[in-house]
């Protein structure tokens, strides 16, 4: 069966091919990491952390004169630093976790905006960082997404059962003598790396949706962790593709389109789940 023209036409453009590949890869990595973000109730961190890397992005931009490499390294350093910083601050227990995240998040974001506002044409560039531009992905970006994404995915799979125990019952992890602090820090670093590779796709402002929405959708439909991760990855990959087609035909921002499809998937799953619960209650 030949594919309809409306599916094939966009593929004639290199930027669409790259964009689709990037959206699918980033979506899958975000969904896998996001499963643990959802299960551990870290959605606020998932929103805060992307914002907190802005000064890294800005510093890289300023130092590198707009080149891609320094921006990337800047965001990487800022992401890991902030993730571990929030981890250390909340373990001190003198400040509540959400307050610690809020303080770090707003302070770092403000520093980022201050740095960017010192660049003359800042309005345009800020929008780019805030909302991403998956259609501007280059071949070297794809290599980076693939490499870091593989690293994150393999680490998650290698420590799958340890992360599962840690997320389900921290005290069990402690009595089984798993290194809980190390595992928690590893998870934070994995989230930080994921944010760096997703920066180009959905940008800072919508990143939390990529981390939370596919995983939350999957949690409504599944009862085992590996299925939750599989379904979340599927939802994210589908949203990436459908979102880019939506963006292509409706001429709307690519990141926003991806997140809108994600949200629609969640609402469908929610309605399905609510309907099933009602049927069970009735019969």
């Amino acid at each position, binding site marked *: 069966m030949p594919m309809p023209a409306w599916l094939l036409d966009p593929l004639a453009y290199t930027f669409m091919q790259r964009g689709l590949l990037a959206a699918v890869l980033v979506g899958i990595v975000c969904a896998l990491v996001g499963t643990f973000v959802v*299960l551990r109730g870290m959605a606020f961190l998932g929103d805060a952390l992307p914002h907190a890397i802005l000064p890294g992005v800005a510093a890289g931009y300023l130092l590198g004169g707009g080149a891609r490499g320094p921006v990337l390294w800047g965001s990487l350093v800022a992401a890991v630093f902030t993730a571990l910083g929030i981890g250390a601050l909340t373990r001190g227990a003198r400040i509540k976790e959400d307050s610690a995240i809020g303080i770090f998040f707003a302070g770092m974001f403000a520093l980022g905006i201050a740095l960017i506002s010192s660049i003359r044409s800042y309005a345009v560039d800020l929008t780019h960082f805030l909302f991403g531009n998956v259609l501007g992905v280059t071949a070297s970006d794809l290599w980076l997404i693939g490499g870091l994404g593989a690293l994150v995915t393999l680490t998650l799979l290698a420590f799958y*059962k*340890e992360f599962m125990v840690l997320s389900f019952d921290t005290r*069990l992890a402690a*009595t089984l003598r798993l*290194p809980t602090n190390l595992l928690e820090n590893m998870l934070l670093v994995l989230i930080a790396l994921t944010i760096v590779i997703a920066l180009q796709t959905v940008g800072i402002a919508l990143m939390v949706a990529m981390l939370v929405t596919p995983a939350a959708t999957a949690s409504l439909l*599944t*009862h085992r962790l590996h299925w939750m991760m599989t379904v979340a990855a599927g939802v994210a990959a589908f949203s990436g593709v459908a979102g880019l087609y939506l963006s292509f035909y409706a001429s709307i921002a690519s990141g926003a389109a991806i997140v809108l499809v994600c949200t629609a998937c969640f609402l469908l799953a929610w309605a399905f789940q609510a309907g099933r619960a009602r049927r069970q209650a009735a019969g």
Partner: protein
Amino acid sequence: MSLLERFRSLAHPGAEHVEDAPFVRLRGVRANYNGVVALEDIDFELHGGEQVAVVGPNGAGKSTLFKVIAGIHPPSRGTAQMRGSDPRGHICIAYLPQRNEVDWRFPVTVQDVVMMGRVSKLGLFRRPKAKEWAIVRECLALVNLGDLAGRQISELSGGQQQRMFIAQALAQEAELLMMDEPLNGLDAPSQDEVFKILETLKQRGVTVLVAMHDLGLAARRFDRVLLLNRRLVGFGRPPDVFTEDHLRAAYGGHLQMVETPEGTLVLNDTCCDDDPAHAH
């Protein structure tokens, strides 16, 4: 500890058990919790295989005592040892969560939760194979949950949830099992089920500590009781521990003794005022 060592510790061998050392021994233990002294001058020994009820008013330090014994809350003074060494080296200690501390929507089945007990035995990078799942099935059969292995955990009743965690401790090959208020919110038949499984554990030589509120139940069901109120008030056979002096020392003004024609009735009104499962 170097990073490499920390990674290796993901596959934990468990500390050696020293012959003739007391099963659990606390010496002059003081422990702080949220900046307040929760335990003071705690001295006692547990024998291997015995089952002890730990009783005392809310805030008596029962949970802190369990954490000290489990090696997840080091004492600020004194020492805690299991079989002659620091409990932090042992992987045979199970400390079951209270049911209200568990996220029951977590995407795991009953057998997944029991398998978690095998994680330190399995070691790093290893997935459970047929042999491990056979152990899990065996543990589930011991607590009469064989039929529910594939259920998502929220589908279980309160008593079944409690038994699932006991099966997890069995899968862990725990030699010391601590349970925090396992009977809270369970109806009488479910409580009986839990006691039936405690009997099985006794036959297998597992040492059990149960924190509970109901003094009568503790006296009827346990050979030894430990009465705690920050300090250790009494430890021994129930008639020797539940004396008027001891109970007054532990419960203070919250305790009322009513003389009735049948004997002394002890009313303890500290119980459960923050626990809706026990609202009267």
